């Protein structure tokens, strides 16, 4: 049986950087599925702490704030290779190295799942603050709906 992980990344103390964690919590709260093969993980700003996790899963979907030079709240589903080649900027990472570098080390070590995707969300502000900006707040429902749609495809 396949094992899936939905991993939220970011720091809720840095405004829109926390959008991955906010969406993860919303997914968990509304989760009426008893599918024990889907694991919801708050990756926070764990960085290298996440390295030993990856090989436990067949497929991983990361939810993260990524600067794609789009309008705040815009989103895009990207696979691992796209993330590597597009050179998008992740948050002002509080811990080096960022998630892509951690994934590259995992890949070299053979500690890697078969499939990795990113549900990337364009942030507006990554400065200090407890809440998302109003632009991202306004987009939360749309983001959640689309994220759920992607998760359905993800676990097929």
């Amino acid at each position, binding site marked *: 049986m396949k094992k899936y992980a939905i991993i939220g990344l970011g720091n809720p*103390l840095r405004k829109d950087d926390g959008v991955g964690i906010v969406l993860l919590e919303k997914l968990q709260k509304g989760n009426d599925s008893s599918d024990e093969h889907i694991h919801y993980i708050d990756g926070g700003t*764990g*960085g290298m*702490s996440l390295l*030993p996790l990856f090989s436990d899963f067949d497929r991983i979907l990361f939810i993260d704030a990524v600067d794609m030079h789009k309008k705040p709240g815009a989103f895009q589903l990207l696979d691992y290779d796209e993330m590597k080649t597009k050179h998008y900027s992740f948050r002002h990472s509080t811990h*080096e190295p960022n998630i892509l570098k951690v994934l590259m*080390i995992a890949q070299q070590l053979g500690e890697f799942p078969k499939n990795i995707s990113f549900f990337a969300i364009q942030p507006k502000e990554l400065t200090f603050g407890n809440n998302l900006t109003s632009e991202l707040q306004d987009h939360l429902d749309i983001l959640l709906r689309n994220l759920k749609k992607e998760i359905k495809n993800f676990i097929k």
Partner: protein
Amino acid sequence: MSKNMAINLEHVTRVEGHGNIVLNVKKGTIEKIQWQVSEAPRFFEAMLRGRPYTELRTIASRICGICSIGHSLASLKATEDALNVTITEQTALFRRLAINAENMQSHILHLGYLAVPDLFGVGSVFPLVESPHKETVLKIIQLHRLSNELSDLICGRTTHPIRLIVGGFSAFPTKQQLLHLKERLQEGISITAQVAETIKSVVDKFPTFSRETEYIGLTSPEEYALYDGTIASTDTGLFKDAKNYRSIMKEYLVPWSTAKYSKHTRKSYMVGALARFNLNSKMLHPKAQRVAKSFNLQAINYNPFMNNIAQLVEFMHNIEDSIRLIDTIVDKGIKEEKPVSVTIKQGRGVGIVEVPRGILVHDYSLDKHGKCTNANCIIPTNQNHANIQKDMEALVPQILHKPKQEIELNLEMLVRAYDPCISCSTHYLTVDFI
């Protein structure tokens, strides 16, 4: 000597956050040595103000992705101190397991991925993975996974714990889960010993250096103090007035750094694994004592590079201690305890724990509704900045004859030995732009 040299290492790699090293030498005379911490100020303490006591732990846990358990525990201890909450014996045992998990996670991450590449003469863990040392990296990952399993089981998560709450735990693991983990921890002992052997074979790559300084940490007559204890200094002994911690941890400003420096009796002091070892080595469990002995690490050791080895020693201790704690918990029987009930009142509380990088203080004032009116956090890395600076001032004249590249590497290794987590450090001075 007529050597001229300008070293300006911006954003020292393989440390958490951003720090710069500046060295200017003219005609063999050192004109400037500076450890500059250039990261923008953070405002975590301001975020705690105005929040109810029930939320403080959650916010504190986000200060750091590496030390989220330690910040949680310091936060809980401060809150419980302010509200006069006494936790149960079982909660104290489980919290000790939690702090062991975090020490293990952080130490193996630092040693394995950030410090060990220096010993093997490579620039990062990347080339190590493709070298004959890949097996060592895989063993380090095994130990990292074991550390995460301990955190998952006790705290409900690998990072940013959820089960740790005011007055106790929201859930406890079962006896079977604990016993299974005990087996895994027992396997971890031999893997740790193998990693220690590998590190021993290259430990001479650490520069031979010694500078007498003061070491500060928690101490206890009952255990190797991490979760609880009395503040102690290698210079002045016990300091029992925990609420008056500011008279030990005296912060001051330097013009070249946005982070505050700290001192006590001397111009600097050190906190962290080596400080704890120097204060408490006799309280280590036997296998950890053996690891220390195999590296000839004896208290008091004044070589900051040996902080890496003290971390390795502590890793072994944390495994042994976790096995002992699991045995105690299982012997006593796991009770499905609810958290101790809280009577909200006005008050001030101070919570002090040892986190991987050293002694951590959270100090909260609550109003009569249980809302935080003031918060102060003393972060270990900030306490070490002055000691890093003083070490550099002592080290550079000893290595000035070496090629520039080697001097740079030695200085970077020195910073990395402290395992600084600059990103998480609070207490920055306010900069006014005129």
